[in-house]
């Protein structure tokens, strides 16, 4: 897929993580890019450790931690009791005393269990201590549709975190971003939630071998276009690109912006693109109401008002819990077809 070869321009803020980035790009899956990030972080810095329920099992969190326990030992790749709030507290306690933990969750649906430690502690510790104590904690959590996983196992809760000052919320869509953003988060001092869509793990893309860091808050134009801007997150970037390809056949030119992180959000890029196209569709993996797509729309209404030639549209999950059966799942998860209709609706 061509877009995965596009490297975002991070030159403004890129710093090295354990050594300068060299030339060599290889094709890696999103899964392997993340595993490489995990592994290089563990190699580079003894303060890094991974923790999470069953992260050392044969499945290895969709393959992203496979083999790491054998290589780094059980003290650095740690299984965890099923006690999300307490264990998040433990990770924060470790983070504020010198470690750089990565807490990994098989599904974001379990994070409501530890919102107190995330919202009231991780997000606030730096501020409450007048900047004296930082929280270099990375939390990885998986979102997205399974196989009839239903209401408690298919949520996409990034907005809950993106609402909280003191957190960062990244949603890498490409292998390149996944590696660089996760390494950036581990190397950085802000508590960061990394949201990974399970349909991305098989995606391939070029990834440098050396460790490198991508800072949050810088979006990327994945496809340039003139008529409509689609600002998308995570897996929705691919649905947007597919919609763009199909619409191109009709001569409709779509610009696809990959937000890459939803907190901070690259407002400038949204505005710039909307100024160019005059039309905006926000496509997010989560719900609409008070969600990431609302923020995207609000930014346009605030900062690109004069440029907007048509109503903004949002493409999100229908505002109901996720159903189990497949006929409803089909109706539930938006696709490129829904994006195409939305585009037609505002042209």
């Amino acid at each position, binding site marked *: 897929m061509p877009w995965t070869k596009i490297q975002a321009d991070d030159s403004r803020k890129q710093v090295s993580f354990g050594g300068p980035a060299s030339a060599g790009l290889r094709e890696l899956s999103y899964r392997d890019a993340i595993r490489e990030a995990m592994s290089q972080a563990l190699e580079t810095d003894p303060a890094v450790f991974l923790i999470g329920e069953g992260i050392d099992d*044969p499945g290895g969190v969709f393959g992203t931690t496979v083999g790491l326990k054998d290589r780094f030992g059980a003290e650095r790749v740690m299984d965890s009791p099923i006690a999300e709030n307490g264990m998040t507290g433990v990770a924060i306690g470790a983070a504020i005393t010198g470690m750089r933990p990565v807490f990994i969750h098989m599904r974001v649906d379990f994070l409501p269990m530890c919102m107190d430690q995330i919202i009231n502690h991780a997000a606030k510790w730096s501020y409450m201590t007048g900047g004296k104590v930082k929280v270099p904690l990375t939390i990885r959590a998986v979102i997205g549709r399974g*196989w009839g996983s239903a209401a*408690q196992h298919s949520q996409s809760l990034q907005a809950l975190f993106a609402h909280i000052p003191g957190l960062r919320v990244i949603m890498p869509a490409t292998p390149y971003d996944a590696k660089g953003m996760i390494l950036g988060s581990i190397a950085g001092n802000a508590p960061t939630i990394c949201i990974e869509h399970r349909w991305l793990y098989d995606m391939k893309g070029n990834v440098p071998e050396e460790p490198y860091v991508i800072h949050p808050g810088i979006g990327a134009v994945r496809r340039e276009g003139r008529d409509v801007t689609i600002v998308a997150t995570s897996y929705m970037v691919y649905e947007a690109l597919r919609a763009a390809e199909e619409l191109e056949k009709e001569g409709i030119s779509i610009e696809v912006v990959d937000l890459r992180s939803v907190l901070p959000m690259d407002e400038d890029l949204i505005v710039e693109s909307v100024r160019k196209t005059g039309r905006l569709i926000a496509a997010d993996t989560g719900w609409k109401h008070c969600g990431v797509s609302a923020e995207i729309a609000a930014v346009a209404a605030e900062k690109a008002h004069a440029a907007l030639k048509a109503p903004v549209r949002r493409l999100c999950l229908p505002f109901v819990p996720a159903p189990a*059966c497949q006929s*409803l799942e089909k109706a539930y998860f938006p696709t490129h077809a829904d994006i195409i209709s939305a585009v037609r609706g505002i042209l």
Partner: protein
Amino acid sequence: MTAHTDISAEVLKRLYETMLRIRLFEDRVAVLYPEQLVKCPVHLCIGQEAIAAGVCAHLAKSDYIFSTHRSHGHCIAKGMDLRPMAAELYGKTTGCAHGRGGSMHLVDTENGIPGTTAIVGGCIPLAVGAALTARKMKNGRVSVAFFGDGASDEGVFQESLNYASLMKLPVVFVCENNFYATNSPQKARQPEVNIVERASGFGIPGELADGNDVLAVYRTAQKAVERAREGGGPTLLEYRTYRWKGHVGPLADIEIGCRPADEHEAWLKKCPVDLYGRYLQENDVMSDQDIEAMLARVEKDIDEAIAFGKAGQEPAGTDLYDYVY
């Protein structure tokens, strides 16, 4: 196997029938799953049937049970009709949750199953809440929480013990310790102390028993349910058992190294259904013919349930917004 002399033949047989219903239903799901018509994850309880059967034998239709992602057995033991259960697995409008819930969210209000939850530990305080209702309504009902060893890692388990004890609520906490939470062994998550030891810290009685011995379960659960019903407050029961299949799906997980093969084999030899079946025969409670007849009856129910499940319609898609509130 503990002796039975004080338990009526009828009860002894019913226990066996319940275990068979669970085992054969789960076996059928395992066999049919590769058809890919059940389009949701299934967490089978094969190997753990004695606990559901032994506990629910003491419950009235109006008593409550609460359960987890691994709830088929509990619901069957509580008296749920297999047809809406199968239909729910098949994602049909004829399913108990009209296809919205799938395997992890069974419900049967008629039979005291207000719903099940796939969030580990989530069902435990719900059971306490139902017991609070029973207390407030003075309706004599008892509430049972079924949950795993993994759920006992969660703080909410202890919050539930604390409140149930404080209020002396009619609730029984049933921990099915199968030694694993997904692929994570108990010893990777807890110090080497029996889960039941937590009870005394909250001033409630606890009992540890062999979860593959249905009569041991029956007896310990009897005391607990009676205590609850008589206003004596909660009990924590820990039953040791083992799941035969992988955490999710119809295959065992031994081949891929999730659990030691010898451990698995040793537990297969302690099959709760076989053990009890042989015991019933040896003690002349059931003859070969009795068992044949029972098997036939159960198989027929399951055939009908599967047929019912397959025959139903999937939701139309236009009804996506139903049932939210």
